[in-house]
């Protein structure tokens, strides 16, 4: 999910709806993603550089397209396994992170993290365009910005920090951060 600001009050939320039941496991999404993000554009392709991956295990009927999300320094302490409709999904199957625990979403040679950018500049993400079975569907919706709510969130957060560290320390930290800027 990414957010484009259109004015003070509204934003467009882009969501890719993933229907794992419709995925045919062909990996065209990985092909076009890696080609689009090659430099120069389309000059090469390599699914190992793709920002979308199909977690794929045909004999267990597992097909999960996952988009590269944020990079994380540390792997999770505990990991979960899910059973859905009788199929057991491995730990990390649904996770979008570029993480030390696995080699998904990293450049194969440098190891630098990859992140989906929804194919900036294109009408729609190309993985969506190349998926003829609608396993990937782009949805856009406008949402009101709720600044007050964000303000509330901020205050709740600060209050909890003040409770923990004391108001003075919080003030010091704010001043220091200001100076850095």
């Amino acid at each position, binding site marked *: 999910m990414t957010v484009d600001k259109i004015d003070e009050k509204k934003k467009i939320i882009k969501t890719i709806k993933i229907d794992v039941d419709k995925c*045919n*496991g*062909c*990996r*065209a999404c990985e*092909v*076009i993603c890696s*080609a689009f993000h*090659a430099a*120069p*554009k*389309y*000059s*090469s*392709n*390599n*699914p*190992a*550089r793709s920002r979308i991956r199909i977690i794929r*295990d*045909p*004999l*267990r*009927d597992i*097909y999960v397209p996952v988009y590269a999300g944020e990079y994380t320094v540390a792997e999770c302490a505990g990991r979960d396994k899910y059973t859905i409709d009788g199929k057991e999904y491995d730990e990390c199957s649904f996770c979008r992170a570029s993480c030390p625990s696995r080699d998904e979403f990293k450049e*194969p040679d440098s190891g630098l993290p990859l992140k989906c950018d929804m194919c900036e500049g294109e009408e729609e993400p190309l993985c969506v365009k*190349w998926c*003829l*079975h609608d396993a990937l569907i782009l949805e856009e919706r406008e949402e009101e910005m709720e600044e007050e709510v964000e303000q509330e969130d901020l205050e709740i957060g600060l209050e909890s920090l003040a409770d923990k560290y004391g108001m003075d320390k919080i003030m010091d930290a704010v001043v220091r951060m200001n100076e850095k800027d």
Partner: protein
Amino acid sequence: MRYAETGFNLEVDLTRGNIEKVATDPRDTELYLGGLGTNAKILWDRVGPEVEAFSPDNLLIFGAGLLCGTPATGCNRTIVTTISPQTKLMVFSMMGGFWAPELKYAGYDKVILRGKSPDLVYLYINNDKVEIRDASHLSGKGAIETGEILKKELNESKAQVAAIGMAGENRVYYASIEQGRSSASRGGIGAVMGDKGVKAIVVRGTKDINVADPEKYIELCNEVLEYIKFREENPIPGVMAILSRLGSPQEMAVHDEKWHTENFSWGNSRTRRKDFWTEEVATEWKETLESARTRLISCYNCPMKCGATLSLPGLPTYMMKCFTKLTYTMGAFSNLEFGLRIAQKATEYGLDGYSTPQVMAFALELLEDGILTDKDFPEMPADTEGRFYYLLDKIVRREGIGDTLANGTHWAAKEIGNGAEEYAHNNIKKVEQLPLKLFMMNPIYYLMYCTGEKMNITQIEGQFPQAPFPKREHREKFVKDWFQVPDEKFKQYFLDWEMRGEENVTPFYPTVEMTCEIVDWQEKMHYIDDALGMCAGLSSFHLKPPYHMHNFPKFITAGAGLEMDQDKLTKAAKRYRTLVRANNIRRGMRRKDEVPPADHWKKRFPELEKELLDTYYQYKGWNNDGIPTKESLHELGLDYVAEDFVKRGILTDGEDSPFEDTSSEEAMAEKEKK
């Protein structure tokens, strides 16, 4: 820099355990493209006619098509080439799936196996790291099972595995190489892999494949994708269902099998069952398929869902596509449930789904007619289904009669003797065919059956409608958006083709000349696919396919950076097609071998058939015995073939007259006995 291809082959000497990464000559790409084309060249250069299938000097070449690994939709085929134990000729069986692109990403265009490993091994390719590893723990394991074990063992869930089952290990002449949802099945290439002591090749690659003109290339790819969408929304009217839509015949999706079950023959390709498809059967079979099928699935980078994952109660899950759905069912006069169940076992054993049921039905017919006796089948169950399972096990283990049957109907019949040869009636060039028995000889199909060197009709047909449309207005409508034709004249040929009447009807229409042109076009498109790695299901097999003679040259130019146009591509395809024939001519193939299955048509036209073959040979630049002439070889830049032919006395130095044939089938059989 090399574009589309990697420019490297992996040479593996199994006898010495030596592995080398060898740079290839870009001039060979210009002349023979890649895939089948360069495979044929390597085989010509390195495997002489004296080398037998199970000799350490035989090569087993896994060639990824030239454009595999690029974003071209549906371009994912591995072309496996070797000398076949069944035909003793060059064989090139192909598989889709995911293996060829992975090999390209690992940095190789081909894996070339030579020699023999003393112990069972597997090859592990992970980018630059390539190892021959012990596979003794995989001996006797199923082909799919092997893939799963290796991926787990190596902790490489993304690796692609091509493996053989017990049939390959025991050198069954119709053993396949299986790869997840695809297989290279024809001609016994799995037996050659087993003979070399290689259980599997595991590939993982994370490198780039480059294209020469990125903007142009992606534009071409997008056009193809758009046209696929158009074709999916607009099936071709007036042709049978499997031809109206793209892809391999959609056997995993369709329930209505009236056409196959009533028009194809059952048992040992003998019995037509005209009223088989009742409502009761339809309901039962639909239920069987729907409860077994978990998902329709695709090969690499292709939207067509030609395959399916099948899970039957009590059996491991496996994958299937196309007509294997019905071959076991019809061979055993049984139902779909039986067919899908035994196919699971046969897939793990790694067997060709066309040949295997026919060999088993052939054996049971011989028993029924007293040529084989109960003594040949100790402890065999009484019911046909039970017998099929019994025979399957005997064949893959080469036990008892199974050892004979494991060589296919042709060689088994020769060994059994006593009139058994009459029962191996559905072969071309010793290979079992689809069980089709028809009435009137069709000139196009006659030439395709006779001269095809892929030994499979589906691997040469396509492009041109199989039959005329009843009304001219329908034909006019059909040709309106038929832009795929390489020449406008083909539209006229079709427009004038009448279903009934005195003029322009089968078998004397299309005329001999037209037939030659049509067959040549059809074959050419398959050969182009096989060099590029393109699936026939989006290309040569179809009427109005997304890939055709007009965009292929552009794909090659923008993709591989080779200056290409229609004429140059035609010439290149002709060059390596001729080289395939040259390999086979050198191994003794001649005109006498170029015949359709004996009883394929009831009504034959010997004079017309002779004229067809005479004219087609001439059209192809072959002499009257099917041998490429010196002149035509010279035109294609294949003088080295001509020289070899002269040296061997296949062609004489003065003229292109056929030499007395000494390496006939009989001579080969004699040699076999010794």
